[in-house]
């Protein structure tokens, strides 16, 4: 019986050919695809300004001194170095305490502790910022909403993350106009469309992505006054904020200072209750240079319940937080069971050792000072004022406003790689390539006039 059926192999072959050939080819990732292309580039002049990885003044990816010391401590530590056991599903207790302490006590000293004291924060160690966004997306899509507003422009992966993790409607809000944050257009759009664009039978609160600082890709952030207007609007509209904090420290060099958006959102006097929660997605990729180790966190600030609202006394365990915790665990268990250990051990050592922590703060400041120096040096050569608009232009990226054609020309004729949207990573600029780079940028910027 079996044998006669097996003789029909040719038939099955055609069946399967058609089944996997139904799989279309996905376009390459806009950022990481380019760096793979760059590796194959043969020209000696090539400059990679695509990925947001910090490189030092010699073009090298180096490990922060604080992290090197932490690694040494781990290597020589009998217990830390002799245990590659599974971490708990949402990470270790130590990691949770250290990171919550950093984010909610040190970064948000006025109101953060209030949320911790009332068990109002559900926490997950995640695979950096992307992992935090993905877990948040799955949770939101299951219980809260499948509608999200993403800035236009934004990090290319935002849309991909939400689309692939249960969201049905991706809306874009106007963020950038004529070199400025389009604050009026943004608020107007939310007020007009936030709910009306949803389908009739879907009145769930829409979510909104906010870049906490160093907006990716424009490098342009709202002023503090503008943020107040925006958060007021979002709060009034009962939207669910998702704060993507990938670059804490890279704006000013001072990590605590850069958490201003979180401080604003957690202000209990202004915003007494985010009725469908607030989601903080945080990453140590950039500010601790732990990119490939995938360390970050998701903090879900849960809504007030009747028994813990407006009370200064710590209550018994908040049942709401426990429910959320249990659901977050289920999501993680089905995705990857438990998070990777090494990166979180490094973070734990840095955050719990006063000396190393101090060193880490210095390391971040040192990095940011170099990025500021690059901006100034480029400004000296190009005279583009946005380069040194330190009040609003922040972080690792400079947004050239180049058209896709100009970006192509830069790549093909000058071997200078930017992302397709014209984003330039300043960290790839150094004394040895800045003159050549600025000549290329100058030439390409004049292209449109010629055409």
């Amino acid at each position: 019986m079996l044998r006669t059926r097996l003789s029909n192999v040719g038939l099955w072959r055609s069946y399967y050919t058609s089944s996997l050939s139904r799989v279309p080819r996905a376009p390459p990732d806009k950022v990481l695809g380019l760096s793979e292309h760059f590796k194959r580039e043969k020209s000696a002049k090539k400059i990679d300004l695509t990925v947001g990885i910090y490189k030092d003044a010699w073009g090298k990816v180096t490990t922060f001194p604080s992290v090197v010391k932490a690694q040494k401590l781990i290597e020589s530590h009998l217990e830390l170095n002799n245990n590659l056991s599974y971490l708990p599903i949402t990470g270790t207790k130590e990691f949770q305490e250290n990171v919550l302490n950093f984010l909610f006590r040190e970064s948000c000293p006025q109101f953060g502790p209030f949320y911790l004291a009332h068990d109002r924060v559900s926490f997950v160690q995640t695979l950096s910022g992307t992992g935090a966004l993905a877990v948040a997306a799955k949770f939101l899509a299951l219980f809260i909403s499948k509608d999200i507003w993403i800035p236009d422009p934004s990090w290319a992966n935002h849309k991909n993350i939400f689309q692939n993790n249960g969201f049905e409607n991706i809306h874009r809000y106007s963020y950038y106009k004529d070199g400025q944050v389009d604050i009026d257009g943004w608020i107007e759009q939310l007020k007009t469309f936030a709910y009306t664009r949803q389908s009739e039978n879907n009145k769930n609160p829409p979510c909104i992505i906010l870049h906490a600082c160093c907006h990716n890709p424009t490098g342009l952030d709202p002023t503090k006054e503008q943020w107040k207007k925006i958060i007021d609007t979002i709060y009034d509209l009962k939207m669910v904020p998702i704060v993507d904090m990938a670059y804490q420290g890279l704006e000013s060099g001072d990590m605590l200072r850069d958490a201003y958006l979180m401080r604003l959102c957690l202000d209990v006097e202004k915003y007494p209750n985010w009725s469908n929660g607030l989601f903080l997605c945080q990453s140590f990729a950039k500010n601790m240079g732990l990119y490939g180790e995938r360390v970050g966190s998701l903090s879900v600030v849960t809504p007030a319940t009747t028994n813990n609202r407006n009370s200064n006394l710590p209550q018994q365990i908040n049942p709401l937080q426990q429910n959320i915790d249990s659901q977050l665990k289920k999501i993680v268990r089905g995705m990857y069971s438990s998070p990777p250990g090494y990166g979180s051990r490094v973070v734990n050592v840095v955050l719990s050792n006063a000396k190393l922590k101090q060193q880490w703060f210095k390391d971040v400041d040192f990095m940011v000072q170099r990025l500021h120096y690059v901006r100034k040096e480029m400004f000296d050569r190009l005279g583009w004022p946005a380069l040194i608009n330190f009040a609003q232009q922040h972080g690792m990226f400079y947004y050239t406003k180049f058209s896709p054609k100009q970006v192509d020309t830069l790549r093909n004729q000058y071997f200078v790689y930017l992302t397709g949207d014209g984003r330039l990573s300043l960290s790839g600029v150094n004394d040895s390539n800045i003159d050549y780079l600025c000549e290329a940028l100058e030439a390409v910027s004049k292209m449109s006039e010629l055409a």
Partner: protein
Amino acid sequence: MSASLFNSIELLPPDALFGIKQRYGQDQRTIKVDLGIGAYRDDNGKPWVLPSVKDAEKLIHNDSSYNHEYLGITGLPTLTSNAAKIIFGTQSEALQEDRVISVQSLSGTGALHISAKFFSKFFPDKLVYLSKPTWANHMAIFENQGLKTATYPYWANETKSLDLDGFLGAIQNAPEGSVFVLHSCAHNPTGLDPTNKQWVQIVDAIASKNHIALFDTAYQGFATGDLDKDAYAVRLGVEKLSTVSPVFVCQSFAKNAGMYGERVGCFHVALTKQAQNKTIKPAVTSQLAKIIRSEVSNPPAYGAKIVAKLLGTPELTEQWHKDMVTMSSRITKMRHALRDHLISLGTPGNWDHIVNQCGMFSFTGLTPQMVKRLEETHAVYLVASGRASIAGLNQGNVEYVAKAIDEVVRFYATGAKL
């Protein structure tokens, strides 16, 4: 106060294994034994970092080019290509014909999740068949992605052996083109594997119905100490299905390299022999990359570098092979010690299955009632199904555990068949 959608979110029960770990941790008794979680312990009951892994770590730390840069979306190529050779074999026809796609994953769960997401995106109507019983997380991984699961008979409780007829019957009766999740060796939780001859029958039956084989390979080298022996089923499947259907492999280095918490694994797709692979391979690869990008961006580097060093440095590979023998032979020794103690105690029932099973676990046949009494009266912890992690046994506690089992069996077993 405005109503919150949060109020309707239910509390889920804690993960069963996590519950055991917690109760065990709080247990104040001087003698206690944890046979719950599937992680190797040395003869002192301590987690064991493999000597080969320690050496690999040293090499990595001393490498002047060591940094924390992002890996590519599909992972570290020196890991994924060597991992493919380990599981498919260096002589693999599929590898020689360049029809294998390999991407890095967060260990076995991550690989299974990628496969679930891939199926739900492109073949959402396929039924996914899981062995009964199976690893507790299998069903959740597939159902979380909206896929429907069914089960195939596997364990015959009466005889404590494989229910081959039931298994083959389920394959025959499943809708054409279904997905069969197969444990390639050291079946979890039973520790019972088909013989090589039985595998041939299973794979032939799968071929006859155009099904897709998905191998969960979490214990290669851990079952027998020999990577090739433990890869028999996978290699057979890839060969026999090469003109029938693609074969999916979810590979973990958690157990065989002791990388548990570092989350190192790979997801492989062996395509069928066909001319269209030139377009299908990049298409499938691109979709897998898109899935990975949307959840983790790129996989974690540290563990990947360690395993890549293990697989790519001949001296380390040799040491790693020895380390796997160390682990598997200690477990085999403990299986025999437990069985022998039970026999000398005259514990009612036949205990040969303990030595016939392989891998980390033994499906002891103890009832939930007995398991409960083991925990309460003797501080011996295992999951309610009667699955015991043999790695938790050592020279210092095996006799104690045998006596505890003896007591609970006698307490309940008048008349029960064991």
